[in-house]
């Protein structure tokens, strides 16, 4: 009897490895079959275009001259490094990102702190304050272009009436005033994003923490500095990174308002790439520029995360 049981167990154990992988396969196959369509879609929609762009960057191709393509290897990428217009556009992009994201964050933080308070009509104020987020970049650009118009704009009219200036300002003819114009427009558009994210983080803070801080004699500023800021830091870091990446790639508002002018002063990297591709018709070089842009943003994101991690280490 014991021998029969042992034999049976040994026979069972011998069968177990063979049946194990079949069972494992059946167990794994179904979920993979369920997600396969999505994996295929994402792979096709993301990986294929990426690979195509990298390949296109290795070709000399201008569709305006016909369908012929010529393999040039890394020549387009090498050309990027020696292209003065690329470096100028990169500097313009940095100015654009820093000048846009900082005021957006500060405005958004202020809006979130106000909206976090309880007051009458808060719901309506929230809707109004967050409305610009729903407006597209092109429409935003046209609105602010009209407001800043050098001849018939409302901003100039107000400034002249308030005697801040003697004559209407031609905002778009100097790089300084042009940047100011687009920063204001972009701050109006982007601040609600920070307001939404930070407001959500604020509302997740346990009120008991503020009570405890008050009981310990903390001032309003100390409560903000030692309770509020640490608790919303994660949200700030993530939203700032996202906003910086999006702003770097934005072309709609800037193109609408300045077309990269005056005299190329606000030609950011995406605008430069757009010009290279659709105005000059150099699809291959434009693709190489796009790949370099992508690498720059990946490096920036990695550096940002690392810096964030290091500054938060005890």
């Amino acid at each position, binding site marked *: 009897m014991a021998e029969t049981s042992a034999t049976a167990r040994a026979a069972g154990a011998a069968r177990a490895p063979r049946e194990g992988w079949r069972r494992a396969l*059946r167990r794994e196959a*179904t979920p993979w*079959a369920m997600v396969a369509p999505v994996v295929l879609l994402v792979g096709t929609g993301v990986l294929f275009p990426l690979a195509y762009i990298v390949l296109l960057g290795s070709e000399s191709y201008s*569709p*305006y*001259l*016909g*369908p012929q393509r010529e393999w040039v290897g890394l020549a387009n990428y090498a050309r990027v490094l020696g292209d003065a217009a690329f470096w100028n556009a990169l500097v313009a992009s940095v100015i654009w990102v820093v000048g846009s994201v900082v005021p957006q964050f500060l405005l958004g933080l202020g809006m979130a702190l106000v909206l976090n308070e309880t007051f009458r009509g808060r719901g309506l104020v929230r809707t109004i304050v967050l409305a610009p987020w729903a407006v597209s970049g092109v429409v935003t650009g046209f609105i602010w272009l009209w407001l800043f*118009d*050098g*001849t*018939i704009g409302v901003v100039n009219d107000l400034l002249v009436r308030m005697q801040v200036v003697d*004559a*209407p300002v*031609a*905002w*778009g*003819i*100097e790089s300084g005033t*042009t940047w100011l114009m687009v920063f204001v427009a972009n701050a109006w558009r982007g601040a609600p994003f920070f307001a939404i994210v930070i407001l959500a983080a604020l509302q997740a803070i346990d009120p008991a923490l503020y009570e405890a801080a008050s009981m310990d004699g903390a001032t309003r500023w100390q409560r903000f500095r030692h309770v509020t800021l640490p608790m919303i830091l994660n949200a700030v870091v993530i939203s700032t990174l996202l906003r910086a990446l999006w702003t770097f790639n934005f072309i709609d508002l800037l193109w609408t308002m*300045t*077309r*990269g*002018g*005056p*005299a*190329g002063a606000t030609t950011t990297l995406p605008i430069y790439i*757009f*010009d290279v*591709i*659709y*105005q*000059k*018709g150099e699809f291959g070089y434009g693709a190489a520029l796009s790949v370099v842009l992508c690498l720059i943003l990946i490096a920036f994101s990695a550096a940002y995360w690392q810096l964030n991690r290091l500054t938060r280490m005890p």
Partner: protein
Amino acid sequence: MAALVRAQRRAVLRGLAAAAALPVVGSRPAAAQGPARITFGWPFASGAPGIEELAKRFSEERKSIQVEVQVIPQAQVIPRLTTAFTGGQAPDCMGMSDAWLTQFAGGGWLENLEGMVRSSGIEKEIVPASMGIARMHKGQAHYIGYLVEPYAVYYNRKLFAEAGLPAPPRDVDEWRAHALKLTDRARNRFGYYVLGGSGWQFQQWTTWMMNHGGPGVANTFFDAQGKCVLAGPRHVQGLEKWLALYQQDKVSPPASATAGFQDQTNAFNANQLGMVMGWGGYLTVLAQGIGEENLGTALPPAGPAGQFFYFAGNGFAINAASKQKEASWEFIRFMLRPENNARFNQQYGAIPAVQAAWTADWLKAPKYAAPLEMLRSTPKLLYNPRNLPGYASFQNQFCPEQIQKALLGKQSAQEHATAVVTALNEMRAKA
């Protein structure tokens, strides 16, 4: 229990597989023969209602061909059409500017219409200047014109009367004098719009250059050796005079240095400008803005080397990959019937490209006198190198940046002329 779960799982998988197979097995056979459907792309800011009306009337008249109009925003026409052509999604036929013709024909995307033009005999109906434009790419017609237009002067008669000016200026010195008299900065009024942004600023400053230095061979931009003439001392002198209108005389709104064609239009329609320069569409747009009775037209000013005019034209082109070329050509022929061409241009365009329409009464209105005179002045017509590959980019992207630098004092007139000449010589060498 496990067996039940397995059975349910198999049922689900069978169901998914069946659903995935449906589009393959459930596809219907090809639709029965119905009317031919063609798509017509309209890429201009104005005129869409007129085109839609023509499409509707054509579809009603010719039940066997149905036309669907697709409006393409003009500001995005090059990226949109480029993407459409490369992706095989471009319309069957479309409106086409002479500024883009070489760019799209060079890509092999536009049908060579020589055969259709010859067999239909339409050439004798079309203004010769328009057929010249149509054949700019390799001497073959890649579009058939529906309008021609000169780059003329448009002025506000009311502001002229207020300033005591009886007539528009005839030469560049009178131009400056008129502009100064019309300028009153305290009232936000300016004599002339020195355009530096996007939209045909090139034609303004080169008018001054050409009427000081003269054109090249056969009124082109190139001399007998094939070199661009624009950097000559007299050409640069002409450019300096034009720049001075903005920099020293300040007869233009300060914002004009980077503003676009639409800004110029808005300022003129707001009665802030005495004179502007523009294309034939202004005959309608500006008349609507300041009133027909207040709009005057004139020839561009003469200079020491003479008087020269730009002319252009829009046309209709057929997608080389279209499967409905014959149907598209029929629609184009319909739109170019004299009565249809005249009506469309009267409402939205400029001067009809169909010569039979030139006898229409509406063309006898005073505002058409100067444009018609310019189009008839063949020896004075300038031939800018629209046929060179890359010209669209040169005029739309390269030139605004350069002229803005010149207007804003970041480069001299000579440096600007040199940059332009270098670019044009390079384009010609590559062609």
